[in-house]
């Protein structure tokens, strides 16, 4: 399945400590026209994303500068030695530069409390392993949703710097550097933003 996209394909960072699984997820993603980088641990993922895991929340500016290749989505295994997928998810959501990147968790175990914990921490999706081709179609909507939000936030910031009067909700709701709740669900931001005439991506 060749990519016929007229723009650069979306880039997914896949994290899994198992070599056969990494091979599989890489192939699934490439078949679905994603550009893929695979790493075998959470700490390597953070390194790739340009943050050091001991000061994730403070190195935001540095991260933007280091990231030559933007990552549009992170998909990670839950059960990994050292930093679990959940730990990685938390670090990402604590980072002002990375928190808007959609995160998908994969696990071979169907444990509802685990799934809820991940979704509450801000994961956008939970895949039961083994991951299949049909699961790949669920990824793009999350990427588009987060891009939409990003564009909207940038628009708002431009408007604020231009004028005094503003029909938008207060800046703290959208500002990416604010200390928003760590338990923020991905959907919450969408509801806070006023409904302008922008296309809604489901």
């Amino acid at each position, binding site marked *: *399945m*060749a990519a016929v996209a007229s723009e650069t394909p979306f880039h997914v960072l896949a994290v899994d400590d*198992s*070599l056969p*699984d990494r091979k*599989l997820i890489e*192939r699934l993603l490439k*078949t679905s026209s994603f550009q893929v980088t695979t790493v075998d641990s959470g700490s390597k993922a953070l390194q790739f994303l340009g943050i050091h895991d001991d000061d994730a929340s403070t190195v935001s500016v540095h991260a933007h500068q280091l990231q030559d290749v933007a990552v549009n989505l992170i998909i990670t295994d839950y059960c990994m030695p050292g930093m679990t997928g959940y730990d990685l998810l938390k670090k990402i959501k604590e980072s002002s530069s990375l928190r808007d990147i959609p995160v998908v968790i994969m696990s*071979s175990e169907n444990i509802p409390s685990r799934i809820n914990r991940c979704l509450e921490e801000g994961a956008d999706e939970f895949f039961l392993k083994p991951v299949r*081709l049909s699961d790949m179609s669920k990824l793009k909507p999350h990427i588009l949703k987060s891009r939409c939000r990003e564009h909207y936030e940038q628009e708002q910031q431009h408007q604020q710097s231009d004028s005094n009067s503003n029909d938008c909700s207060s800046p703290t709701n959208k500002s990416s550097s604010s200390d928003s709740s760590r338990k923020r669900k991905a959907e919450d931001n969408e509801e806070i933003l006023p409904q302008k005439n922008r296309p809604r991506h489901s």
Partner: protein
Amino acid sequence: MSAANQLAALIANMFATGLLDDQFQQLQMLQDPSAPNFVSEVVTLFCHDGERIIGELAKLLDKPTVDFDRVDAFVHQLKGSSASVGALKVKNTCIQFREFCQQKSKDGCLKTLETVRINFYELRGKFQTMLQLERQVNGFPPNN
């Protein structure tokens, strides 16, 4: 019988005897001219990984005091990779194995390790034949 026919018969047999499940078909679907060796690559990685894990399990279970958490972690890994390649029988043996880990039964673990070993090597042997036949089908002479 041509290599192609032998290959088809082998794979059909592996499905029929419960060695493989439909996840293996997912792997086959992912192989195409842009990734012509995908199945053999994943299968090879699984075989190496499985052998490594079985070795670690044997070492852990050989100790006078067994660290069942570590044993369980390795079995979980093998269960995961066997699920990913469609190795149904090995996966199911791993599920049984984990129960003995929960129960902290050294005896149960040792017995199940033997079963895992037998099932894994049975599968590995068939995978090796499969890869050989695939090479022949693709026009390469059989190895040794």
